[in-house]
């Protein structure tokens, strides 16, 4: 097995927008290769700004970022190297889709990497197949539904085969069915060994999916760790206005009432909690 290595190391990032908004105020974060990280925090806490730093769209005014233990080189060539490794799926697909043709749209990134048309074509077709885009691949992007646009915007990046994929609130504004479909795609990415960094407001989902939850507040990381630990810290939840997932709330109450053992591993899914309860015997409840 490959030894864990650090893919992102952000050190003391500061960034202030031209209008004076201080978006990042000394942010530190490391991400290991292959990790599934959920970034959470209120709107305006600096998540998107941080993401734009990770592939060099924004340059920190103070601090530095290392990708694969190498500081980002902001020359043309250096940025190309970084953007090959780090892909961002933007929150709003309308900000990302520039072409009316789905195939053209997906081929843009891969052709920029300088591969041959033939190779690009093969990769584009493979991604179209993989993400289930085939049924609407011949439609123009302006006739696609929100969920379909989202899938195309993920394909845009996936085709470039990045090592780290950043998804900015991928399931926001989607209906539950399409949101679950995107969840499935995200799992697919992790399965391929791609490191995934995604921002979300959905604590229940983060609890199930993430290896680690990172809480952003006011341009800084105010807490990080295993989701079950983070979501049981009343202090952190209050600071970030997050709600404790229902599974944990029920689990904690059952522990307090002495029905379940404190030493049990906190459940991530409803099924796990049900398992604990069944083991104990429903009658006791």
């Amino acid at each position, binding site marked *: 097995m490959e030894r864990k290595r650090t893919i992102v190391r952000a050190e003391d990032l500061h960034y202030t927008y031209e209008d004076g908004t201080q978006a990042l105020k000394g942010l530190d974060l490391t991400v290991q290769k292959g990790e599934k990280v959920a970034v959470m925090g209120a709107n305006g806490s600096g998540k998107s700004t941080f993401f734009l730093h990770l592939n060099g769209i924004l340059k920190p005014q103070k601090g530095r970022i290392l990708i694969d233990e190498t500081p980002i080189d902001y020359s043309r060539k250096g940025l*190309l190297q970084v953007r090959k490794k780090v892909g961002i799926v933007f929150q*709003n697909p309308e900000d990302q889709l520039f072409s*009316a043709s789905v195939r*053209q*749209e997906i081929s843009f990134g891969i052709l920029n990497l300088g591969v041959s048309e033939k190779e690009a074509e093969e990769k584009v077709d493979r991604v179209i197949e993989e993400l289930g885009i085939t049924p609407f691949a011949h439609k123009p992007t302006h006739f696609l539904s929100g969920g379909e646009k989202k899938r195309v915007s993920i394909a845009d990046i996936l085709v470039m085969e990045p090592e780290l994929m950043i998804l900015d609130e991928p399931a926001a504004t989607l209906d539950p069915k399409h949101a679950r479909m995107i969840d499935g795609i995200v799992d697919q990415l992790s399965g391929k060994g791609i490191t995934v960094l995604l921002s979300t407001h959905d604590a229940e989902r983060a609890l199930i999916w993430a290896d680690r939850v990172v809480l952003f507040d006011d341009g800084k990381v105010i807490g990080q760790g295993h989701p079950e630990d983070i979501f049981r810290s009343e202090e952190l939840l209050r600071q970030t206005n997050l709600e404790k997932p229902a599974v944990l709330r029920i689990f904690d109450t059952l522990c307090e009432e002495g029905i379940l053992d404190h030493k049990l591993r906190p459940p991530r899914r409803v099924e796990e909690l049900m398992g604990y309860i069944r083991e104990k015997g429903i009658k006791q409840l």
Partner: protein
Amino acid sequence: MMMIDKLAYSSPWRYKSTHLKSCFAIGTLLICVAVRSFLVSSVILALMGCLTVTYSQASLSRYGKMMLWPLGFLMLGTIAVFFDVAGEPMGLLHVAIGSKYIVMLTESLAYGARLILVSLASVSCLYFLILTTTMPDLMDGLKRLHLPWLVIELMTLIYRFIFVLLDSALAITTAQNCRLGNRNLRTSIRSMGGMLAALFIQAMGKSSALFDSMEARCYEGRIRVLTEHRPAAKKEVLLVAAYLTGLLALAVFCHMKGGL
């Protein structure tokens, strides 16, 4: 315009070779404009009409309505051709204005009618092309013709953003209407102004967001994308070649007969 776009995407001839369709339509158009013949134009108008109604999703009535759009302009434009100023009464009609007469001559009537017919036939060629060919395909075609890349890239972005901005404009207008923004002329004009201002700001924001996302995908000033290869079948090429030759022969014949 949205309707034309939609029809093109659902045309049964959408996947035919763009080059062949363009050669067919543009070739016909050139012959039509070059000879300006009654007969040739009528043939073209009928042929293109039949083909478009059969091989695009436009129904006959819709196609008829689409033909009426340019007709309005043509009528207005040719009114001036119909009439002449003469020193004495002559022709089919004459109206005295002071010492001069405004007259309508048989020749100018024929000239005007021919102008309208040729124009409509030309329009029918273009309708055929745009109702069976999608915009990305047309742009691919232009790219192969070595149109400057800047023009193609601008077309790509503009075409995409028509829909993005139209969506925004519609959403803003609906929201305004919900708050009685179109109660009377005064509020309508104010709402329109507000909508355009908001749209402009949105457009600026969207363009910078798009630029960021393109940069994130290693954009370096040139948009490189895959082009669709849709080779034409030999039979189709021969058919179009035979048709164009036939049309050309008819055109030459009409020309030699003198203004048929």
